């Protein structure tokens, strides 16, 4: 088991009103699993993803990642965990505009303390995996949306993370590009990657092995006897 959450709650305080966004979310993910989380807009998907990716801290609950208690970690320790164990693919890419594709992909490896030669080699390898070996020196503004997302995926996988997190990775893409991304995910999965993907499109979710649904901050893992498709 790579990841397990118990009774995770996240509550925002808006003025004097408490807004619960996640309520008692519990789930776990096995090594090599390919999981999709679906839910309507505003249901708390991104919030859950941020907590899973150690970008955000829950209000209460317990979270173990690779056996490590995440909630007790300091900010810099979380940064290291994100760097080592987690690869992020964001809905809106978040590539640095002044860097080439290769430099963008190599950036997390820099933070991991890798030598320049190793960084560039790994980054090139990751770009090959997503089929962008001929766009290595292009800047994000010289790439299409689908290509940008593939660069972002390359960046996420360059450090060989244990867990790949994707928040609506196809949300900004057309169907063809979306399918390309899904095909990459499928291949990564078949090579043994653990993937959690958030989406609100059924066709995308269907690519995963398992689908959980979230509604108003409650995650339905199908275990509590609720409906499952």
């Amino acid at each position, binding site marked *: 088991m790579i990841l397990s959450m118990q009774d995770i709650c996240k509550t925002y305080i808006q003025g004097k009103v408490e807004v619960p966004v996640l309520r008692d979310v519990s789930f776990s993910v096995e090594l090599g699993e390919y999981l999709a989380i679906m839910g309507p807009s505003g249901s708390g998907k991104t919030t859950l993803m941020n907590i899973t990716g150690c970008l955000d801290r829950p209000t209460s609950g317990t979270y173990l990642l690779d056996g490590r208690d995440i909630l007790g970690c300091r900010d810099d320790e979380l940064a290291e965990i994100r760097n080592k164990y987690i690869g992020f693919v964001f809905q809106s890419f978040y590539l640095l505009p002044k860097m080439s594709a290769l430099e963008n992909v190599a*950036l997390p490896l820099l933070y991991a303390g890798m030598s320049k030669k190793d960084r560039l080699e790994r980054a090139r390898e990751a770009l090959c995996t997503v089929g962008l070996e001929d766009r290595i020196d292009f800047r994000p503004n010289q790439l299409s949306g689908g290509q940008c997302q593939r660069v972002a995926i390359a960046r996420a996988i360059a450090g060989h993370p244990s867990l790949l997190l994707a928040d609506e990775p196809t949300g900004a893409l057309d169907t063809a590009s979306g399918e390309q991304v899904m095909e990459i995910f499928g291949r990564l999965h078949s090579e043994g990657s653990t993937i959690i993907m958030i989406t609100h499109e059924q066709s995308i979710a269907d690519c995963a092995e398992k689908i959980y649904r979230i509604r108003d901050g409650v995650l339905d893992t199908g275990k509590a006897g609720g409906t499952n498709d």
Partner: protein
Amino acid sequence: MFENTRLAFQGVWNHKLRSFLTMLGIIIGIASIITIVSTIKGTNEQIKQNLIGSGTNAVIVSVYQDEYEYGMDYSPNPDGVAVISEETRHELEEIPNVEAASLFRKRSYANGIYYKNTGFNGSISGIDAHYFNVCGYDLCYGRGFADTDYKNCRKVVILDTKAVTTLFGHEDPIGSTIEIMTEPFTVVGVVEKSNTFKPVIETINDYYMYADTSSGSMFIPDSAWPIVYRFDEPQSAAVKASGTDAMTNAGKAAADLLTEKQILVSGSQFSYRSEDLLKQAQQLQAMSTQTNRQLVWIASISLLVGGIGVMNIMLVSVAERTSEIGLKKAIGAKKRRILRQFLTEAAVLTTLGGIIGIAAGIGLAKLLSSVMQTPTAISVPAIIISALFSAVIGIVFGLLPAMKAAKMSPIDALRRE
């Protein structure tokens, strides 16, 4: 680190105008400091050259009343101070490190001297035959004083070039008659200080005179002095030391000898003392340094303003790059790294400003010295300190924005897009 610096330079280059405007405060501050420090150093060097580096190594020994030089201009002859004999002058020359000695009487601010209707308010000295040698004058034209001039107390006068300019302009002064205390004196020669540094600065009074408008010096034979001034006026002595470093000791020895021989009353308030030019030079330097140091403080305010400007622009830069910071943190950059990135950027900005400021300051100092005729000397330590200091300003004023960036939470930063 190197990567950070490269990126910082790139950032500065990408926002050329903005970076330049931000640097302007630093540039102005550093430039004015360099200019001021160069001026201080230049003035100090000139003072030193004028006072002691003039090459003649002459030390003046004169009568003091308690702590102050006794001015014969307005006071009667000091009681119990005898006129120095030729014998004693020989003894002065026997002192180790003294090459030659001369005796003279002097009025620093002459009055009653006219050529036609032009008054002369420079100095006049009654000199012996050794004076020009000891104090380093060369004859330009005409003649020097002959033995007969001394023997017959002839009313002849020698001018220095400055006095010629003041009284005669471009006329030939030789043979003209100058009126000194109603007595007619004939100009026989013109002398000029033989060394490269003009004008002649032998005493502190000379320096002040030169500093405002000196109208030059005149010389008459000492035997003619009583005709126009007083009888039995005790002389001053000028001793020529063998080198600049020997000046202080030679002067002291000469002063001690004269005090012992010439001051007849024991426990007198009068004594012979030498002017310690080295010390006076230092005092003058200290004075000019002090006034200029206040200017440095004022210039530092501009650095402070510049620093605040840098802080401001760095805050803007941090705000603009929120999502960049968020992403970097999301993929594993620690606080330290973000902090360093922005500190480097601020330091590069201010150091660049500092370097431009140094260049501008050197240029300004050169310009100033050529336009205003004031001496300047570029100070290397000042340049190094300025460069380091401007980097420090960047780090100090960049700290707040950099910390703000480092403390950002990654999701907040990403969401703010």
